[in-house]
């Protein structure tokens, strides 16, 4: 694929699939048609300049492919009238707001609670973010054939069970939005932490997650958790360039001048709007923590006591080892390593916590700062034994070597 077409592909795939799905009511057909349209585009755009409106061109071509296929099938089954009716309802030039609505319809279908939770993320990455089955298979550590099979099954279920391509009504939204936020959050986390592959951050996944969060915030401007998620993603993504060069760079060691202040400002504004609605929740609390970091010009001016308090509030919503470990780190910064270590030692008793590499990595760091070198070495080795992602493995091995024990 030429790079020009590739850029348009990333940007336009989800929009085109969404529009054609609305017109045909068939996600599988829409994906095939958009795929064909992109194949035509690659041939055409390699030798000629891009059309003035590549997005409109792609949607029109994809629509024509879909309609051709519907017409062929209709002729076979004698249902030409139904097909003609659908064709007559086609608007040639959907306004921008309409395309956003089409994408929202598709999000709610892909994140439907009747679908298997893991498959919801995969389906969203495929249909809305335009990742290939091969790329998604790598993310989920499964073979491409397995992943393709899962997607086929999910699309078949959408059709067979009558899962609608529809934005839920106002009274249904509160019950449905949480599941959608979770999927968008997971898409972002996958981009930000990149559990697979050699890159520390997969920026295109972060971009897609922010784009989807914006669409949802447009749909639910009065839902503080939707705003909270958007703020969280913006404030976290603002550190993308500083966090990942060739290797993982820790928050304290990041070059803060390379943080994206446009994203920080927007994230802070969105978080303020959420806070004014006075219904705190986990995404807002995480965003508030990210905002505390963003507000500190130097690591030494970070308000760790505030961050520890926010993690304590978050732990009441989500009492997971991950949240408690983060609280321990904040407490260690506010009150000293010994206070943080006490919280981590409690967590280590928990079997779930004991199998988590970052818990051992945090303990190792606090033990190192307390001068308990031998114990720190054991903790680094315990973290490494739990098979951390490549970037973290390199970091932890480095620290272990520095300990000289």
């Amino acid at each position: 694929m030429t790079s020009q077409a590739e850029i348009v592909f990333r940007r336009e795939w989800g929009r085109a699939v969404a529009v054609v799905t609305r017109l045909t009511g068939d996600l599988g057909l829409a994906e095939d048609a958009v795929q064909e349209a992109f194949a035509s585009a690659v041939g055409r755009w390699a030798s000629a300049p891009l059309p003035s409106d590549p997005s409109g061109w792609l949607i029109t071509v994809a629509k024509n492919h879909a309609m051709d296929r519907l017409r062929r099938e209709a002729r076979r089954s004698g249902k030409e009238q139904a097909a003609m009716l659908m064709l007559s309802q086609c608007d040639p030039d959907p306004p921008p707001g309409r395309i956003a609505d089409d994408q929202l319809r598709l999000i709610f279908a892909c994140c439907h609670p009747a679908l298997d939770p893991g498959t919801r993320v995969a389906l969203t990455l495929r249909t809305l973010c335009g990742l290939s089955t091969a790329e998604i298979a790598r993310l989920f550590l499964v073979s491409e054939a397995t992943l393709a099979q899962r997607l086929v099954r999910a699309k078949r279920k959408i059709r067979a069970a009558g899962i609608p391509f529809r934005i839920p009504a106002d009274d249904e939204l509160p019950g449905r939005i949480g599941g959608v936020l979770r999927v968008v959050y997971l898409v972002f986390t996958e981009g930000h932490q990149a559990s697979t592959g050699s890159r520390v951050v997969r920026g295109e996944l972060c971009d897609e997650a922010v784009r989807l969060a914006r669409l949802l915030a447009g749909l639910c401007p009065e839902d503080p958790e939707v705003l909270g998620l958007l703020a969280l993603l913006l404030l976290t993504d603002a550190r993308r360039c500083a966090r990942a060069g060739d290797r993982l760079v820790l928050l304290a060691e990041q070059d803060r001048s390379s943080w994206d202040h446009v994203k920080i400002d927007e994230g802070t504004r969105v978080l303020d709007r959420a806070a004014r609605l006075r219904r705190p929740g986990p995404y807002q609390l995480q965003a508030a923590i990210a905002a505390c970091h963003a507000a500190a010009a130097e690591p030494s001016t970070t308000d760790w006591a505030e961050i520890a308090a926010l993690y304590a509030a978050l732990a009441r919503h989500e009492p997971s080892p991950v949240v408690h470990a983060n609280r321990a780190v904040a407490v260690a910064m506010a009150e000293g390593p010994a206070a943080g270590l006490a919280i981590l030692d409690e967590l280590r008793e928990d079997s779930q916590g004991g199998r988590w590499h970052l818990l051992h990595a945090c303990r190792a760091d606090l033990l190192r700062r307390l001068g308990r070198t031998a114990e720190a070495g054991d903790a680094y080795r315990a973290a490494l034994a739990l098979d951390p992602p490549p970037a973290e493995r390199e970091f932890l091995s480095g620290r272990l070597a520095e300990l000289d024990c």
Partner: protein
Amino acid sequence: MRYLCLLIGEPGIEGPVPGTPEFAQMLSDYESATRAMAADGALVDSGPLQPPSSAATLRVRDGRPVVTDGPFAELKEQIGGYYVLECADLDEALRRAATIPAARYGAIEVRPLMVMPDRA
């Protein structure tokens, strides 16, 4: 689309006991839910079932019927009733199923009926 809603009792969850005000309330909730579905044209059929002990299970083997007593053994939870609903999509079926009291005391499996080509 048509959906079969199977009303399933979950072991360990006891519904209201006959003769109590809660039981009377549940019956009246069933009635109003069913009436609302009928009024909207969504209700195709519905009904409660006699207890599983009243069931017989039939298999035809080598052309001969083989009947055993009791319900199909592999069915862990017991089915207490059913609704067949005509709905635009799964979300409508789920919304309507949520008005059936059995959803509060057990579970409701909502499953689309297959559309046979000659009836479509």
